[in-house]
């Protein structure tokens, strides 16, 4: 069946994703993060711990670089050599960018990380054998490996704490790679409800944990295919297109005055997270 399937659907199988035509229908989950609104408060990160059963590794293991924060807030300083950072700091929430042409996907030997039809870079924990090639090849280094057995030998969730674990998310044992999933468990619930009602998921029906917590509303999440979605409108207004390694607006003479950009676009992973540049007042 497979070989006949191969021959019958040859063009489907030779379809290069996402470069050829419209890659996703009816969903393509994407995000935009407004760095001008982001205050770096870490609420998103803690919300992620709560939603996704992230283990707290403790001081010693944090020191060794075993932190499991799927969403980390980076803090950058200006590099102008001044005594004081008189323009403040730059905060950047960094999590899996759910690349359309993800470097991690192709290298996984067992296919534990694949592209879903919704445009999410899925991570199938029970399939993972822990070769860590995905993280080696991730330009953003946003994948996190279970170096120890946090649920059992490390006892990260001692009695009572374990009752907080979200049953919709697998608790990962040792030797498994994990990362931000765009709260795929919430997406699944929303899609289920939509299906029951014979419709597509509305904009705003599904929130990621970070988005829901974010006090400044810096994070927008939604369906990029849906022309009515906030995230689609933002991407459009910023003239950022998914399957491009350099945006047309950036090639124009004199540069762009639009704030939308994606990190490491030039490496061609086609990330699904658009950041909006921070703005700093020029009058002071």
């Amino acid at each position, binding site marked *: 069946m497979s070989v006949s399937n191969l021959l019958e659907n040859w063009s489907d199988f030779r379809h290069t994703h996402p470069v050829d035509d419209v890659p996703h229908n009816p969903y393509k989950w994407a995000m935009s993060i407004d760095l001008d609104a982001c205050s770096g408060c870490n609420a998103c990160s803690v919300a992620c711990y709560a939603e996704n059963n992230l283990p707290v590794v403790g001081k010693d293991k944090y020191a060794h670089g075993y932190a499991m924060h799927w969403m980390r807030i980076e803090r950058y300083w200006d590099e102008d050599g001044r005594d004081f950072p008189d323009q403040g700091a*730059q905060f950047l929430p960094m999590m899996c960018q759910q690349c359309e042409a993800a470097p991690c996907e192709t290298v996984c030997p067992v296919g534990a990380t694949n592209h879903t039809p919704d445009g999410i870079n899925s991570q199938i924990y029970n399939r993972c054998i822990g070769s860590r090639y995905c993280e080696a090849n991730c330009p953003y280094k946003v994948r996190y490996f279970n170096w120890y057995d946090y649920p059992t030998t490390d006892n990260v969730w001692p009695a009572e704490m374990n009752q907080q674990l979200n049953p919709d998310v697998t608790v990962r044992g040792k030797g498994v790679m994990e990362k931000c999933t765009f709260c795929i468990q919430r997406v699944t619930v929303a899609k289920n409800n939509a299906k029951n009602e014979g419709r597509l998921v509305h904009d705003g029906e599904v929130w990621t944990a970070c988005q829901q917590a974010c006090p400044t509303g810096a994070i927008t999440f939604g369906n990029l295919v849906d022309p009515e979605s906030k995230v689609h409108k933002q991407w459009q207004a910023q003239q950022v297109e998914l399957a491009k390694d350099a945006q047309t607006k950036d090639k124009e003479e004199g540069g762009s005055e639009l704030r939308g950009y994606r990190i490491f676009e030039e490496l061609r992973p086609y990330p699904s997270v658009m950041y909006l540049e921070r703005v700093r007042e020029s009058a002071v």
Partner: protein
Amino acid sequence: MMNSGSVKHLAGHPFDRRDFLKVLGWGGAAVALSGCGNGSVEDGKETVVSYVETNDYMIPSISVYFNSTCAQCDAGCSITGRIREGRVLKLEGNPNSAINRGKTCGLGQAGVQHHYNPDRVREPLLRNGDQGEAITWEKAYALIAEKLNGVSGEEIAFLTGGVSGHLKVLLGNYLDSFGSKNHFVYEAVGPAVLRAANKKSYGVEMPRFNINKAKVVLSFGADFLGAWISPVHFSQQYAQFRKGVDGQRGVLVQIESKMTLTGANADRWLVVRPGTEGILALGIINALGTATGDIAAAVKGYDKARVSKDTGVSAEQIDKIVALLKERTPSLVLAGSAAEGYAHGSQNAAAINLLNQVLGNVGKTVEAAAVVPFPQMAPATGNTFALKTLNDGLNAGKYKVLFSYAANPVFTAPGAMKFKDNLAKAGFKVAFTHYLDETAMQADLVLPLDSALEDWGTQVPEYMAEGAQINIQQPLMEKLHANTRGMGDILLALIKLRRADDYKKYDDYYAYLRAAVLQNKGALGGGVADDDTFWNETLSKGIIKLASAAHALSGKAGAAGLSLPAPSAIDAQYPLQLIPSVNASLRDGRNTNQPWLQESPDPLTTIVWDSWVEIHPRKAAELGIVEGDIVEVTGKNGSIKVQAYLFPGIHPDAISIPLGRGHEALGRYAKGYGVNPFQILDMVFDKETGELALHETRVKVSKTGSRVIVVKDEGPAGGSQMGKKIAARLPSDKVKLSEEVYYVG
């Protein structure tokens, strides 16, 4: 996500409701990835426990949402708990509340870890030597009655943190039953000076600050995005402020000696010599040149040259700010805790408030807050003056019985106050607590409390976002431990011992609360709805919005009595000013035992699980200190050893150590991590309010010779992007925000 439909289903007998919160057998819900060593669950042995009785909306694997109030800090954000199979899994913001509009901060998210904390006290404990001996509640109540027998009201003291709502009423009644007036409300890092200054300047303690309506915010050390008053509310306002009212993006100028989270988000962060914020405010008034009358006279001496010299802010910079303030109105000037932590803190705050007045912001961006129509429920706000009074009383041996609730003074009082020693002079000490914290360790009787997610209650926030509101706290799940009690239930039990007749009609605090709310149904907006409907609707919303008038706001305080001291000379022995910083997640340390917060990096230094001392790189070079050096910070009242972190966002003559860590008790996630700078604070008090001046401690720093690797998220590249476009930035004149599509909230 929000299944608001299920919330409506709450109609039903309250007894049932509590029953439904029972934990459904969750063996299968503890999901695990079976692997080597982790046994697979596929052996057919696991049990699935069903309900005995259930309601329609309780469906296994479907989440239901109940509203309650966050108790992680006093801001009073409303929360919605996600409950599945009877377990509360996650807290989100309740969109009904004007305070947080569906949002939460990291601290609020960690509320579940307070509830599920393995270190919670589970039984009433009676001191037996160094040990706590588990006793029954009956015995505990009897013991209290026995100890109170023959003790006069004067000899009883009740120490609490900020309390409000019906708990405060009940507490007041309880103290009344002894004729005691000794209710000490203590907050270690509360904005007490600000309240006093606001009262003087505007006529109200806590007006509303409309950051979202301002085009310029000039903040003197107010960390409104981090730990100041109601950070989630202000963060939302801030997001709107950044988008601008009419496409003109708001400009934030932060003036402080140590960069706070808010400072890190400012368009211009101005470092100022510690304690000279008031001088700068007066200098700006002077430079504005619009003041008249006694104000003009008061600021006359503050010419740019002098102000610049005193504060370290360049004249050019003052000009820029003045130009900005003139050009863009309305503006908003905020006086934060950093400006107030000095002996002349009240004066600083008054000077800063005066700037608001001169700029005409009062009534525009500083508005009167709504009045809570039930004054007995209005929050009793805490301060450190109360603690000082209590401490003096304890020292004098005035109190025979001391109750302590929601405060941990043994940890948060300055070491020089010798609170721990004085506490021992009280005859009988009762601590109502969740954890065995430092204060509970000194108590004779420890009474375990329900967590905020198991308990009933009402809360009235101090900072009212829009109209007045009362927040409802209700259980989100069945009690985890059989022998914990709600504070309301305990107080009710205790008061029944005194005034049985008045209270015997209330079985428990829930009944009291329900009766008390329904009694005032009319005033609470219940209209003609029948009791059950109103009550259930109230519970389902999680808040009661009150129609009420606003306070009267006065904008004409003037400059009377304003006198700011010249910046003090550098002390040769203790040349550095110690700034104990209030971190957005750990605050005064009551939440330190929540591991998510310990592991959540400090936004500015990205340090986790430990304390640090921030030193400006220039100063560090002078002292030969590099990152990770263990330095000894010595003041007049002792010294602490802590790792150094080189931080550019601090005045070179100041160092900063965050509060909240350095616990000697509390629990496994808190004990032994970091140091407690409260211990070395100098006993300097604000001259007007008697508040402890947190920033007045002077210290010296010396190397101990040992060095550690600082545990932080930031890598060896530090905060550098190494020339890559990672976190990018544009100047505002390049961006047309008005053409953008954006969504707030």
